[in-house]
C-alpha cells in the first residue's frame, strides 16, 4: 500500500467516525442540561448548608443559655422572695359603699339610727347623722403550703396561716389589727393520689368549725356580702382551736366528667370553745360533729349536688353572774357559772348549675345568767338563699381552658336571701328578718363586684329596752368590690 493510499484511508475513517452535526447539537443540549442540573444541585446544597445548624449556631445557643442561667440565679437571689418550703400566698380585700334610709347618731343609738353596712365594727366612737359611708370591710392574707409531700401515696402534711385585718370599733383615728385567724397543720393519713378513694384529713390548730353551710363559706365564695345573722350571734362562725377530723367515704367518681361525689362526708373534732387566739377558759373540750349525705349520682343527674347535712356542737361556757345596774352581783348570784353551749344545725344544699338553693336551720341553746342562777335560752335561725348564674365561672372546665389573654368566663349571679334570727324563742315578737336581693358580677379571675339591697325588720317585744312590736325598718344598699390575689 502506497503512503498516499494510507493517508486517504485514514482520512476516510476519520470522517466516518466523526459525529454528524445533529449529534453535536444533541450533545450540546445534554451538556447544557447537565450544567443546569449541576447548578441546581449546587444551589440546593448551598441552601441546605444555610439552613443547617453549624458550630457557631450551637455556640450562640449555649451562650444564651448560660446568660439566662446567670440572670435567673441573680434574680432569684436579689429579686425573688424565697422560702424553705413552697408557699402559696393569697389574699383579698373588700372595699364598699353603703347607704341606709335611717341615719345613725350616737345619741340615738336606741334604734333611731341604722347601721350603714349592717355592722358596728367600723363605726367611730361618735357618729352624727350618718346615713352613708365608705369603708373597707376587711382584708386578709393567707399562706399555705406543703410541710411534707409524700410522692408515693399523697399522705401529705400541709399548713395554713391566715391574717385578717379588720377595722376597729370606736378608734379615734381608724386603726385596724391583723388578727391571726387560721393557724393549723393538716395531715392526710389516707392516700390522696387518686380521686376515687376515701379521704381523711386531721387538722390541728386554729381553724373554722365544720358547722353547717354558712359558717364554712368564706367571703370569697359567699354570694351575700354580709353573713347570715346566726353566724355571729351563735359564734359558730368564729375560729376555734382544736383537733378536727374531716373525711368522706362511699365515693362515686364519674371519670367521664371528672366529677367526685361522696355518699357520706363526716367531721368530728374537739376544740377549746373559747374562740381564737386564746387558751381554754374551762377544762371541758367542746365537741363538734357534722355529717352530710349526698346521693351517689353520675354527673348528668338532676340529683347531682343535692346534699342534706346535720351539725352538732356541744360545749360548756363560763358565765359571769348577773349584776345590777351598778355592776354588783345580784344577791345569791355566783361570780361564775359553767353552763351549756349547744348548737344544732340542719341544712339542705342543692347546687345544680346554673341555679342553686340552700336552706339552713340553726338552733342555739345557751345557759345565761338570770337572777341568782342561770336559765336556758334558745334561739332559732332560718336562712334560705336562691341563686342563678348567667355565665360559666362555676364550672371547672370553663375556668381551665387554653387562652392567650387574661381569660375569665364572666358571670352574673343574681340571688335572693331570707335570713331570720330569733335570739330567744320563748319571747314572741323578738326576731329580726333580713330580705336581701343582690347581684354579683364576676368579671375577672379573683375580682367580683357585688350589689346588695336589704330590707331589715327588727321586731322587739314590749319589755325590751327599745321596744317596737311593729319592727324597726331599715333599708340599705351596699356596693362592694372584692378582689383577691
Amino acid at each position: 500500500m502506497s503512503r498516499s493510499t494510507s493517508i486517504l484511508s485514514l482520512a476516510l475513517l476519520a470522517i466516518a467516525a466523526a459525529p454528524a452535526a445533529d449529534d453535536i447539537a444533541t450533545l450540546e443540549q445534554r451538556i447544557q442540561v447537565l450544567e443546569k442540573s449541576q447548578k441546581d444541585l449546587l444551589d440546593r446544597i448551598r441552601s441546605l448548608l444555610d439552613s443547617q445548624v453549624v458550630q457557631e449556631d450551637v455556640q450562640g445557643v449555649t451562650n444564651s443559655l448560660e446568660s439566662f442561667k446567670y440572670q435567673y440565679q441573680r434574680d432569684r437571689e436579689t429579686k425573688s422572695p424565697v422560702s424553705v418550703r413552697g408557699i402559696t400566698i393569697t389574699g383579698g380585700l373588700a372595699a364598699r359603699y353603703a347607704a341606709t334610709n335611717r341615719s345613725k347618731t350616737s345619741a340615738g343609738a336606741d334604734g333611731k339610727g341604722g347601721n350603714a353596712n349592717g355592722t358596728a365594727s367600723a363605726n367611730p366612737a361618735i357618729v352624727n347623722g350618718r346615713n352613708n359611708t365608705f369603708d373597707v370591710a376587711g382584708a386578709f392574707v393567707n399562706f399555705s403550703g406543703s410541710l411534707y409531700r409524700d410522692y408515693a401515696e399523697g399522705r401529705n402534711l400541709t399548713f395554713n396561716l391566715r391574717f385578717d385585718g379588720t377595722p376597729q370599733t370606736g378608734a379615734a383615728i381608724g386603726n385596724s389589727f391583723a388578727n391571726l385567724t387560721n393557724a393549723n397543720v393538716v395531715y392526710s393519713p389516707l392516700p390522696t393520689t387518686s380521686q376515687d378513694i376515701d379521704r381523711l384529713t386531721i387538722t390541728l390548730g386554729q381553724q373554722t368549725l365544720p358547722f353547717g353551710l354558712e359558717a364554712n363559706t368564706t367571703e370569697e365564695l359567699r354570694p351575700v356580702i354580709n353573713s347570715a345573722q346566726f353566724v355571729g350571734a351563735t359564734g359558730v362562725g368564729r375560729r376555734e382551736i382544736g383537733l378536727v377530723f374531716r373525711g368522706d367515704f362511699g365515693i362515686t367518681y364519674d371519670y367521664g366528667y371528672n366529677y367526685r361525689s361522696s355518699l357520706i362526708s363526716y367531721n368530728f373534732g374537739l376544740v377549746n370553745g373559747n374562740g381564737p387566739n386564746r387558751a381554754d377558759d374551762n377544762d371541758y373540750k367542746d365537741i363538734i360533729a357534722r355529717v352530710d349525705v349526698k346521693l351517689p349520682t353520675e354527673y348528668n343527674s338532676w340529683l347531682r349536688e343535692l346534699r342534706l347535712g346535720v351539725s352538732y356542737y356541744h360545749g360548756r361556757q363560763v358565765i359571769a353572774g348577773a349584776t345590777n345596774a351598778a355592776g354588783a352581783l345580784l344577791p345569791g348570784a355566783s361570780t361564775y357559772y359553767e353552763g351549756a353551749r349547744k348548737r344544732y344545725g340542719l341544712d339542705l344544699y342543692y347546687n345544680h348549675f346554673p341555679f342553686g338553693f340552700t336552706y339552713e336551720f340553726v338552733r342555739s341553746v345557751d345557759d345565761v345568767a338570770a337572777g341568782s342562777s342561770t336559765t336556758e335560752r334558745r334561739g332559732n335561725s332560718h336562712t334560705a338563699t336562691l341563686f342563678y348564674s348567667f355565665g360559666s365561672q362555676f364550672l371547672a372546665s370553663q375556668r381551665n381552658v387554653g387562652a392567650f389573654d387574661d381569660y375569665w368566663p364572666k358571670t352574673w349571679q343574681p340571688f335572693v336571701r331570707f335570713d331570720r334570727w330569733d335570739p330567744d324563742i320563748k319571747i314572741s315578737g323578738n326576731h329580726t328578718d333580713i330580705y336581701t336581693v343582690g347581684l354579683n358580677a364576676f368579671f375577672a379571675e379573683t375580682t367580683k363586684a357585688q350589689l346588695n339591697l336589704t330590707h331589715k325588720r327588727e321586731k322587739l317585744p314590749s319589755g325590751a329596752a327599745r321596744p317596737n312590736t311593729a319592727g324597726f325598718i331599715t333599708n340599705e344598699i351596699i356596693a362592694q368590690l372584692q378582689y383577691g390575689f
Partner: protein
Amino acid sequence: MRTILHPILSVLVSAVAVLGAADYPTVIRVGYPGVGNDGYSPVGVSTAGTIAGKGLFEEEFKAEGIKFEWTFFKGAGPALNESLANGLLDFASGLGDLPAIVHRASGIETRILAANARRQNTYIVVPTDSPAKSLQDLKGKRLALFKGTNGSLAWAKILKDENLTESDFKVLNFDSATARGAIATKDIDGYIGGSDVFQLRNRGVGRVVYTTVGRTPYLGRFTTLLVTKDFEQKYPQIVQRIVNVWVKEAAWGSNESNRSDVFKYWGKSGQAWADFKEDYGQDTLASHQSPLLDDHFWNHYRKGILAAHEFKLIRKTFDLDSWVEPKYINEALRLQKLENNWVRYDADGNPIAGSATAAGAVSR
C-alpha cells in the same frame, strides 16, 4: 305605580331576608378536648385542630356573620363533657371515644357526624433507669393515666389483650402534662400516653416499653366530630356545611403530598414534628385522618360501648344506630366527589380492596 311598589317590594324582600337570617345562630360554640403541649396554648392536632387553626368554619360562615367560639379544654374529654352537659357547646370537635360514649350513656343526646383521628396509638413510657422492659414488668407499679379520656378505654383493652387486670397496677389519674413531669422526676413508674411520650424519650428521661403499633387495630383510639341533638335538629343546613368543611380539610390532611405540612401544622401544639413522623411511621395519613363512618368505625364504637360497660366505665349500654348520623358525611362526600377518596376498612380494620382510588392505604 312602579314607584310605589318598588319600595314596598324592597321592604318585603328585606323582611324575608331578615326572617331567613333567623334560621342561623349568631354564635356556634365548638369545643376541643385539649390544649398545646405547654398545657395552655389554644391549639390542637388532627382535622379538628387544623380547622380551628385555619379558621375554616369562620371562613365558611363569613357571609352570614356567624361567629365561632372555640374552647380548648385543659381537662381534655371529661372537661369538654362537663360543658357539653351544661349546654355550653354545640359541637365537640375531636372528642375521644370513651368520653363521648360516657356522655351518651348518661342520657344526653348527641349525634356523631364524622370520624376525626382514628387508629391512634398508645404507648407506655417508663423512667430511663427503670428495669422494666415490658408491661408485665410493671405489675404492682404506679402508672399514670388520664382517666376519662380515650386512653382509659385503650388501657382497658390493652389489659385484656395482655391478660392483665387494673388491680395488677396502681393506676393514678394524672393529666398528660403532669404525668410527663412525674416521669421526669421519677415520681411514677410509668405513663400510659400517646405520641407525647416521645419527647420524654428524646430528652433522655423516658423509655418506651409498650406500644400498640403493629398490634390488633382493636387497640386503636378514635375521636369524632359530634353535635348536640338540639342543634342538629334546629340547624341541619348549618350542620351540613360544617361537615362539608370537615371533609374537605380531612382530604387535605390525608393527602401524602401534604405530609410534612400536616405535621408542621400540628407542631404548633408544641409537639415535635419528629414525634408525629415516628408515630405515623409507615402509616398513610389517610389511615388516621379518614372521616369515613365505615365498618371499622361502627365496630370500634359498638365494641367500645360494650367494653366501657364491661370495664364499669358506664352503667348502661345504648343503641349505636341512633347515635351515629351518617347522612351529612355522605352528602359531603357526594358534593365534593370524594366518595372514593379514602379506603374503607372492614369491621376488623382491614382495608377493603378497591374501595378507594386515591389516598387511604394503611401503609405507604
